[in-house]
């Protein structure tokens, strides 16, 4: 029973990070109808920036901020310098280009930092705090929860209560009409990419201290897991991404705990197949087609 509780909390923490990452994927999907296969590589690149900045300044938090900024910058760059020029008539094109970016990013990181696992320290204690004799969450886990909560709330407020958010939603739902209303649709798309990459960078910063170490391929499995989470929730639904993330996090935790941590990729594959074959539109998607 102890183990189950422990795995549950561990899974929740994992899940919340996956939720953030899945949100980033949903953001770009809604804005551009693209699954950003480069999301993981972009996140890991941002974390490497934090690594360098932290090494130079000695401060984790400055590095953290640098990672977020790097994410924003990278997202902007990818949209403006690459995705703008892709022929979107076939959905495969953007996927292939994103995969090319993955190769490129991972290679550049490998050349700059090497392919060994670099240690990433957590800013707060990762020892579990005991409540009533049960070892539950650590300070770091609480930090993770808080960080993701802040991001989710901030994004929700941004999209529903600010003019920028309204423009972004309009640009995503009805780009031509939005242009007629004076909305800079291209700019909103770039903003979407920047935000998504920033959120991905945050997720990367949160998850990597719990992984083996920093490595160009470190976010590959996280990407696939988050993709699974986004699909579970329905690619169109931010709420679904959050729920999906938590669900996938829990499942992975139980599988890792009871079967073995090396089997996690297998569990993800099985889960992804199951969802796509049983409920391909996800649990929360609105089946309503976009009409004007």
């Amino acid at each position, binding site marked *: 029973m102890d183990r189950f509780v422990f795995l549950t909390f561990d899974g929740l923490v994992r899940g919340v990070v996956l939720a953030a990452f899945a949100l980033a994927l949903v953001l770009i999907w809604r804005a551009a109808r693209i699954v950003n296969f480069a999301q993981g590589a972009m996140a890991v690149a941002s974390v490497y920036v934090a690594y360098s900045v932290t090494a130079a300044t000695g401060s984790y938090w400055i590095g953290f901020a640098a990672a977020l900024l790097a994410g924003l910058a990278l997202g902007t760059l990818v949209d403006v310098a690459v995705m703008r020029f892709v022929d979107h008539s076939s959905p*495969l094109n953007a996927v292939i280009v994103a995969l*090319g970016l993955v190769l*490129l990013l991972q290679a550049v990181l490998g050349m700059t930092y090497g392919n060994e696992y670099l240690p990433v320290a957590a800013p707060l204690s990762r020892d579990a705090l005991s409540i009533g004799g049960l070892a539950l969450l650590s300070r770091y886990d609480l930090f993770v929860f808080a960080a993701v909560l802040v991001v989710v709330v901030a994004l929700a407020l941004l999209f529903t209560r600010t003019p920028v958010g309204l423009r972004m939603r309009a640009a995503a739902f009805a780009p031509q009409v939005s242009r007629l209303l004076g909305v800079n649709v291209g700019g909103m798309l770039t903003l979407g990419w920047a935000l998504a990459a920033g959120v991905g960078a945050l997720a990367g910063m949160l998850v990597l201290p719990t992984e083996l170490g920093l490595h160009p391929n470190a976010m590959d499995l996280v990407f696939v897991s988050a993709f699974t989470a986004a699909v579970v929730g329905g690619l169109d639904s931010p709420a679904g991404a959050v729920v999906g993330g938590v669900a996938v996090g829990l499942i992975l935790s139980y599988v890792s705990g009871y079967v073995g941590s090396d089997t996690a990729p297998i569990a993800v594959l099985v889960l992804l197949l199951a969802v796509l074959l049983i409920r391909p539109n996800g649990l929360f998607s609105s089946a309503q087609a976009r009409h004007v």
Partner: protein
Amino acid sequence: MSVIGEPGQRVEQTTPASAPAAAAPAKPHLPWGGSTLLRHLALVALAAVVLLGLTYWLEPFRNYQLATVAAYLCATAGLTVLTGLNGQLSLGHGALMAAGAYTVALTQQMLTDRGATGVGVLVVSLGCGVLVSLLAGAVIGVAAARLRGPYLAGVTLAVALVVPALAITFDGTLGGEQGLSFYVDPPPAALGPYFPYERWQAWLALAGALLVMLLLANLVRSRFGRSLRAVRDDEVAARLAGIHVARTQVLAFVVSAACAGLGGGLLAVLAQSVSPGAFSMTLSLFLLMAIVVGGLGSLAGAVWGALLLVILPELTHLITEQFTLAPATAQRLDGNLPLALFGGTLVVVMIVAPGGIQRVLVRLARRIDPRRRTAPGPEER
């Protein structure tokens, strides 16, 4: 993205008189039509002769590289048919190559443990490798048949990531991170005592590649090939025309998986070992890059792609050798520069020339000789 005709098609179209002859097969009840099969056999025979001569001319290391190209070609050819002609984007073909490779390794171990020798051993191993990857392809294909676009890509990416997990989970049989090594017989005695091993490797791999090319060339020109394209272009229309869409999708996957399995098996034979590191997600992305840059849907493009996979790392190695670098830096560059170039090339090609090398060559040829027109595919945009 446009699809280009296969090698040899250009020659057909120069005179209108030959067009009806090519269109109406001599024996219509044969699945492939007599003339197409014969033509392809002749081409393969010609290629075999030329390549045979090449293996006598090349030095051992180049023969080894030629063998590697041939092994990759098996995989790229199958993948370009699946993705280019049938529209299914698979990021998991590295895993299918792994399936073939590991099967070959295990079969070789098993057979040599029992004292079996001779070329037959290799044939059996490779055959088993093809069979296993074919089955794996069938399983994935059945699941994939209902998925489209990014969903299919995501699932096959998950498949690609499963390889190291499987190797470690079943490390008793599969050898974990270290992988497996096995024994491959030297060239048969009939070839003489001084027959270079690398030439033998090249012969094995080239035999596999030629077989794959023959099979796929005929498949592409057959009714099945037309079904593949029809499904890719417009599923609804294809279904209305009586094509069983799901079956076509699965078959395409199975065929490409078998080819990938052969390629993986050959790679294993060349290295006399397998390990999860050799069949990572990166390999799947390499294959994708190869077929896109070569030209999606084109078998000639698959050849370009396979060549690129071997030549580019060679070139980057030559470049890095020019500079005196610390060994650690040199190692980093050696490992990653090809990746960077592959990735960059993929991005640039997709934006600038989505049809790949083959398309560029076709356009150049058209400019030089306007009479040499390839049949414009309905896929041209």
